């Protein structure tokens, strides 16, 4: 059985009953029917599969983590506990986190995760749960603790997995977007929306900037984090109110540029994918790449997993594929 695959509900239930440890992604109706067991899950009905991108409410994407290391622990993190997530992680292991989109924990994690204790010291990755796009604003994304047999929409769920001493978890990203040659945009404060900013050091309004240049809002703002291109995606430009909403916060002290356009997402994706990604044991990609990259029915270089409302490689990312590989020492 593959360790990462899209499965029918009854197949997943059988794995749970066998005592396998699973990280699941699926529509609420599919996840609700699963038995109690050592699994976590989040709602999302969009998937990267070996057959290409697809949407399904009947199937569940399974990452079977049973053989990664020791038996995982599972717990919810409420808003006031979230800052402990990396500190609680095993000293040598990897932690998978799923956060419901639009919740207070989503906002708090996005804004504050870079400053959490032990952040970046212990491998922490995951994704943001969402809903079918036809149900936006009607249903709340949910996350599941399979051990408790419950789901919530106001906490993050985390699976902490201790690893053997000889196995090291490596988290990386594939982001075909690169900063364009345009102006440098900076912000004075952390936020999911902005009006005032500095453009090449001069005070400006970001919505005006988009309007005056007729900029493509499907392109993220990209910052260079010591060589890693980190995106902030545009949720909406409110031209009349002269403000811009983002899917992840912008941070002060960080220089952003509008991304260079990608003529074909998959071509650039393939070019950006490092060889190590072929050994990925876990991955997730952004729903915006599924939509803007027109990935329905198209394969993503063998990478499989859910299309999500946000990707987490330590901190919240946008329009990025996140993946995990293991470095197994021989001694």
């Amino acid at each position, binding site marked *: 059985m593959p360790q990462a695959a899209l499965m029918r509900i009854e197949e997943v239930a059988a794995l749970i009953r066998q005592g396998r440890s699973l990280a699941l992604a699926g529509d609420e109706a599919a996840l609700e029917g699963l038995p109690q067991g050592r699994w976590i899950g989040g709602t999302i009905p969009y998937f990267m599969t070996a057959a290409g991108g697809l949407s399904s409410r009947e199937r569940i994407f399974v990452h079977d983590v049973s053989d990664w290391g020791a038996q995982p622990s599972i717990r919810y993190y409420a*808003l*006031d506990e*979230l*800052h*402990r997530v990396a500190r609680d992680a095993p000293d040598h292991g990897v932690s998978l986190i799923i956060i419901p989109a639009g919740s*207070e924990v989503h906002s*708090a994690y996005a*804004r*504050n995760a*870079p*400053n959490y*204790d032990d*952040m*970046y*010291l212990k*491998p922490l990755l995951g994704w943001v749960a969402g809903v079918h796009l036809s149900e936006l604003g009607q249903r709340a994304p949910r996350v599941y603790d399979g051990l408790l047999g419950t789901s919530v929409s106001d906490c993050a769920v985390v699976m902490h997995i201790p690893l053997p001493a000889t196995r*090291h978890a*490596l*988290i*990386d*990203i594939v982001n075909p977007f690169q900063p364009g040659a345009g102006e440098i945009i900076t912000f004075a404060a*952390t936020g999911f929306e902005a009006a005032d900013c500095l453009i090449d050091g001069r005070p400006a309004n970001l919505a005006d900037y988009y309007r005056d240049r007729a900029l493509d809002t499907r392109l993220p703002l990209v910052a260079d*984090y*010591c*060589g*890693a291109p*980190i995106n902030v995606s545009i949720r909406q430009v409110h031209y009349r109110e002269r403000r811009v909403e983002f899917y992840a916060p912008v*941070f*002060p*002290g*960080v220089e952003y540029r509008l991304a260079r356009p990608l003529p074909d997402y998959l071509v650039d994706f393939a070019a950006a994918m490092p060889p190590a990604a072929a050994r990925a044991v876990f991955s997730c990609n952004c729903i915006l790449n599924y939509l803007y990259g027109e990935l329905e029915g198209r394969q993503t270089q063998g990478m499989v997993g859910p299309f999500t409302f946000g990707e987490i*490689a*330590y*901190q919240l990312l946008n329009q990025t594929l996140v993946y995990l590989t293991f*470095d197994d*020492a021989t001694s």
Partner: protein
Amino acid sequence: MKDSEFCRHILGVVAPWDVSRVACDPEHKRIDVWIKSQQGESWFGLRRTLECATCGRVFNLRQALQEHTWQHISIGTFKVFVHAELPADPDCADKPGCCLSQPWLGARAGALSEALEQQIGQLLRLRLPEAEIARLTGVDTGEVQRLRSQRRGASDAASVMERAGEDDADDIPPRQHPIWARLLSGEMDAQIKTLSLKLLLSRIRAQARPDDGAARLADIDNLRRYFLKHRHSLRSEMVRIFH
């Protein structure tokens, strides 16, 4: 100058904090200082959560505030005691620059302010007898003994942590080495391959306060701790950076 203004200056109390009351007891050579947030109850008490303006940590404010008292560094022959109300779960207090990280505050369960603990720590490093340290600082001998055993435990834990790698820390320079400043400033092109190091270094650079020596040392310690923990997967970076 009013007593409260005098104490604000001498203790280094800055916004969002302020001295609300001072009581002096000459008979027992004791000064009590009450410190509150400038916004009073509204800063902590009305909203369900508080987002620390400096480090961004979110606190649960549904729990009651607790008043704590810590002995602080003496003024002349007078012992000083600081009283302050804090939220129950202030886990970001150890972050440099956090509004809950102040030299006149101490650990929730502790009896001494951070500054006084540091002063005693310096005296312990000089290997002075516990009774002498207690006399110099006006602290009970029992507190000095507690700090000595606590420091010994922390030192042992740090040694264990640093030995936990495949070999010793000879391949990672000490915190005083100028390479750390060059790495933090971006002066050195480290050609980093590892995502977590790229993100950590970027965060440190974005939040850097070059004029704050203590914060800078904390940044170096944070970065050095990262290298100690991840040396197995950072071979190529370490060769480029340290050699």
